[in-house]
């Protein structure tokens, strides 16, 4: 029976990957066409920054960037590159897009991974505590706190934390990923990065924390009233074990979907946080590419994030089947 289950799982993954390929191509086409609607191109942006440029120079730039060709030709060339996983060249940075992205990716993954992990742990603990004390003081405090965090814009929280912890108290740096002058290595470098990471991670985590706490609380409240919880109590199981073993695993299913969606928006989701804390991540790169009309780079990032979304969704669906045995993959 297990062998059959494994085979159907592999078939399921294969099917989903084929779907995913078409989805990503579709997203790429839509992104390409949408960006064409934006006024201006890379040549104009360059010329604008230089302050002066004659029509001939602009022409030559456009020819160089391939911007003089028809829309269909440009789209065809772009899709061909995507299919062969060639992300192209950024004329703006004078580097291959792939290298640019790979250079920035670790910083973003670190920031987002740490904040989602922190928010997950905090959200589960807070949600469970709130649900077990429903209507009493701990629940009130947690619920109001979550509501406040949910309603406050993350960039404002980030700025306020800079004011308090960096400017007033001087505990942590205001931005960046590591000490520029220090040139630390090994463990000292890791500590340095963690020190710089603290505020951006908190800023980003607070927002997720609010959502996760509310989801876990609601899920737990629903599950704790179910018959099998009463049966577990009748078995003499301790309340802690009932909450964390019997109820939580059933209550986190909706959370999984939301975390999956959050992970999917990993790459672009932290634009504000990265900007506030000058964090050298993908979000900043994307924002700059947009302002500079570096469409090649922008499209590459968008394609990469759509791949991320698709993979995250697939993983969530696979995890569903692991956590909840009544879910069967077909």
């Amino acid at each position, binding site marked *: 029976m297990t062998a059959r289950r494994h085979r159907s799982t592999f078939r399921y993954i294969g099917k989903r990957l084929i779907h995913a390929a078409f989805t990503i191509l579709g997203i790429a086409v839509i992104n390409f066409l949408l960006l064409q609607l934006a006024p201006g191109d890379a040549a104009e942006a360059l010329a604008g920054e230089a302050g002066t440029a004659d029509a001939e120079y602009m022409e030559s730039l456009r020819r160089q960037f391939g911007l003089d060709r028809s829309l269909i030709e440009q789209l065809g060339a772009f899709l061909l590159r995507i299919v062969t996983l060639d992300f192209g060249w950024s004329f703006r940075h004078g580097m291959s897009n792939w290298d640019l992205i790979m250079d920035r990716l670790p910083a973003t993954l670190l920031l987002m991974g740490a904040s989602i992990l922190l928010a997950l742990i905090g959200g589960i603990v807070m949600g469970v505590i709130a649900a077990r004390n429903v209507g009493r003081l701990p629940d009130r405090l947690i619920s109001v706190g979550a509501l406040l965090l949910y309603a406050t814009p993350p960039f404002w929280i980030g700025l306020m934390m800079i004011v308090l912890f960096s400017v007033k108290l001087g505990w942590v740096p205001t931005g960046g990923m590591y000490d520029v002058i220090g040139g630390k290595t090994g463990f000292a470098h890791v500590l340095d990065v963690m020190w710089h990471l603290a505020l951006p991670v908190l800023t980003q985590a607070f927002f997720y924390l609010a959502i996760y706490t509310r989801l876990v609380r609601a899920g737990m409240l629903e599950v704790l009233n179910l018959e099998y919880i009463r049966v577990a109590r009748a*078995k003499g199981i301790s309340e802690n074990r009932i909450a964390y073993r019997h109820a939580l695993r059933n209550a986190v299913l909706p959370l999984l979907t939301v975390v999956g969606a959050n992970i999917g928006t990993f790459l672009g989701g932290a634009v504000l946080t990265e900007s506030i804390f000058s964090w050298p991540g993908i979000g900043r790169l994307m924002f700059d590419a947009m302002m500079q009309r570096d469409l090649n780079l922008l499209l590459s990032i968008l394609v990469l994030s759509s791949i991320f979304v698709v993979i995250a969704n697939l993983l969530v669906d696979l995890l569903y089947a692991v956590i909840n045995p*009544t879910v069967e993959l077909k």
Partner: protein
Amino acid sequence: MAKDTLLSVEDLHLSVSHMPEARILRGVSFDVTRGKTLAIVGESGCGKSVTSLAVMGLLPEGLTKTAGHIRFDGTDLPVTDNEAMRKIRGDRIGMVFQEPMAALNPVYTIGNQVAEVILEHENISRAEARERVIALMREVGLPDPDHIVDEYPHRLSGGQRQRVVIAMALACNPDLLIADEPTTALDVTVQAQIMRLLKGAQAELGVAIVLITHNLGLVAQVADRVAVMYAGRKVEEAETRRLFSAPLHPYTRGLLAATPRPGRRQEGELPLSEIPGMVPSITEDLRGCRFAPRCPLASDICHRVIPEPRMIGATSVACHNTTETEAPA
């Protein structure tokens, strides 16, 4: 308290905490003898389920005991949860619930869930526990025990799931099993199998059973004694055959008359009857008998004085109008 009495509930009163006038139980007493079956019958809302939850120490939040005792094998039980009660639950008192479809956690295998109760109360290894679980599965009549232990609940039928719940309740060889409407949600044919299983376990393990139900047919077949409850009070208690052949309380008579019986009506036999009127609400304070407003025999005293249980023959009955002469010899 007689020597072979296992569970003794004395004058139990329960109220809603923030609304003391809402009195759910108004003095309920009964004894359960070791190895015997006591059935508690009555219509919905009469307090039979809440009585069983009080014995388990699982009263829902917001209910409090205002008077009375629950004594189990010589020790007083609290009605609310505590650590000592947790050690008794699942180990010495097992419970079977009404809804087998919802009684098992969907994300754990059934073997895992049955083993959990053994591991909680006994100091044995996982491997030993698994052996015990497989043996239990066989005892409760589940097919292919070696494989079914690793199945998840959603693959089992309602009857099979109830067998799993019974296996959980019996896993630690309890002295007392509380079965709260154990067959109500099941098909008629499966009902008989489940009751046979419970009686078989009783014969083998000597476990006492409190059977809570409103199925009088079931009661007649399996119970040794029957307690009839009405609106938070016990109105009559007797040995099963006696209660069915010579019911003394007007409510018990009404209940029996309202039970459909197969076959043609005899000459002069009344059609299926009903008890007119409504159950008083838990906040309604009547000065006299709580059944008086619906009682065909109610007299003046019934509306003024609460009838206390008294023995007529071998039957305990709480009614002013039942006299010795009505009791059979």
